[in-house]
């Protein structure tokens, strides 16, 4: 009986999304964020378009010319060709960073000796400007895929490792006690409690890793064989075709923004509770 009395009060809150703000009475256009967000972008592009042609085309270019170059490079298949090479490197580098970084982080956070042993090397490597290591890595691992994947991995793994570690360490002690009370094994505790709890931290780590991974990817491509968007940039810069140089640069920018946004969306899907308590 009483159960039925209480339930409807709670039922109203189920499925209710706080974002369901009324669409009708939106504020006037000059008070909306989108107006400034896109307005500013358009102003920049316009200024660039107007002032760009005044500079010597050997050093600079401007939006409409870049757009034409973009279409040409796409139609010739060149852009896609180099993009796929870059994406491949990025994909493997990030995947290894995730697959190695996350378990290692949980291990460090849960097993004291591992933590003691790895704390110093991890922090030291994280603080090292990875760029400095690239020439050495190229020397060690050659100039092909392997070397590039290792560079991306090294750029990307530390933010993932450190964020995951943080998330696991901050895991709710009460929930860990519940897990123990219900006789969870260490592995079950990882799977059922620690990793789900750390999902928002891990996602933040991966977001940082994407940014750093892109940097690593381009640098590796500068140093190594003729492949990828990085190579495209150096090649066209060397022959002073500025419009074509800007195409991969802008594509990289776009790639970073898109991947990060995708991850944010994914995070909201798989960790809806993290939104609930903010």
């Amino acid at each position, binding site marked *: 009986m009483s159960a039925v009395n*209480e339930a409807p009060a709670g039922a109203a809150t189920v499925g209710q999304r706080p974002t369901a703000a009324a669409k009708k009475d939106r504020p006037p256009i000059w008070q909306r964020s989108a107006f400034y967000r896109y307005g500013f972008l358009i102003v920049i592009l316009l200024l660039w378009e107007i002032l760009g042609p005044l500079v010597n085309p050997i050093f600079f270019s401007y939006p409409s010319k870049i757009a034409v170059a973009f279409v040409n490079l796409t139609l010739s298949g060149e852009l896609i060709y180099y993009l796929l090479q870059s994406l491949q490197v990025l994909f493997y580098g990030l995947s290894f960073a995730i697959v190695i970084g996350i378990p290692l982080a949980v291990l460090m956070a849960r097993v004291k000796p591992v933590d003691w042993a790895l704390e110093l090397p991890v922090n030291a490597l994280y603080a090292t400007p990875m760029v400095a290591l690239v020439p050495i890595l190229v020397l060690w691992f050659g100039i092909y895929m392997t070397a590039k994947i290792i560079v991306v991995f090294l750029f990307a793994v530390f933010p993932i490792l450190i964020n995951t570690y943080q998330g696991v360490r901050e895991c709710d002690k009460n929930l860990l*006690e519940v897990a123990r009370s219900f*006789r969870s094994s260490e592995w079950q505790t990882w799977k059922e409690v620690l990793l789900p709890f750390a999902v928002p931290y891990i996602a933040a780590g991966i977001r940082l890793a994407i940014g750093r991974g892109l940097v690593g990817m381009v640098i590796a491509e500068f140093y190594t064989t003729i492949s990828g968007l990085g190579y495209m940039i150096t090649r066209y810069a060397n022959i002073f075709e500025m419009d074509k140089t800007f195409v991969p640069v802008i594509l990289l920018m776009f790639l970073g923004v898109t991947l990060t946004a995708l991850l944010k969306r994914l995070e909201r899907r798989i960790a809806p509770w993290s939104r609930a308590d903010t």
Partner: protein
Amino acid sequence: MSMTTETASAGFAARPGSSLERIRVRRLAKNFGALEVFRDVNFDLGEREIVTIVGPSGCGKTTLLRCIDGLLPVDEGEIWCGREQITEPIAGVAMVFQHFGLFPWKTVYDNVAYGLRMAGVSAAELAERVPQFIKLVGLGGFEHAYPWQMSGGMQQRCGLARALAIEPSVLLMDEPFAAVDAQTREILQFELLRIWETRPTSMIFVTHSIEEAVLMGDRVFVLKGRPSNIAKVVDIDLPRPRSRETLRAARFTELRELVWSTLMKEAREAEFHLER
């Protein structure tokens, strides 16, 4: 040596006439570093008995339950559940937490299923048993809701279902209704009594509410302070099943006053106890 300790602990709190005991606590002591939380605690919890524990804040009620659940190592003494000595969490004991302790990333169904899954119960059997317990606590229809979408009362129903689902022989309840509002609390008290009537288990129930202690318990243990101990055991001879009627019985008022005055005496002594 052991003879003397046997006789020394002969005065422990055992239910008169109880033959079967579910939980046996002997000479239990627990310290946190220099802090002696309790010393020489002895009692038996009978089969299907409900013992309620009241005592001043910080006297170690939660610590005692955590020891009995096997979550904390004890410094001295022993805890037995049937023939099993408790040093780690065991299958026959389940805890309901004051903070609910629900996993925010799991639905009601998955939260309730948690203990069973850890015990290795198959998915097919889960599908049969979990909904039963969800219905038992009145959460039918909310299987797919997440904890953060529910009221405190509903969350604790879920916590209760999770504990009941592993069909423990002993339930440990640490102020289970302290975090919900007064009306919900009252509803949940009678719900729990109803559920207990249908499947009576042994229970240790910690509470701050004297009224709740008397309403739920067969015996009320009043703890006294530092290092704490069972200062007094009050037998609650109110008939079962208990209901709202029980609250109006003259005997209920009498017992409530008795527990109250005992607790006040202990509290006053604690308050005027000079630190040396």
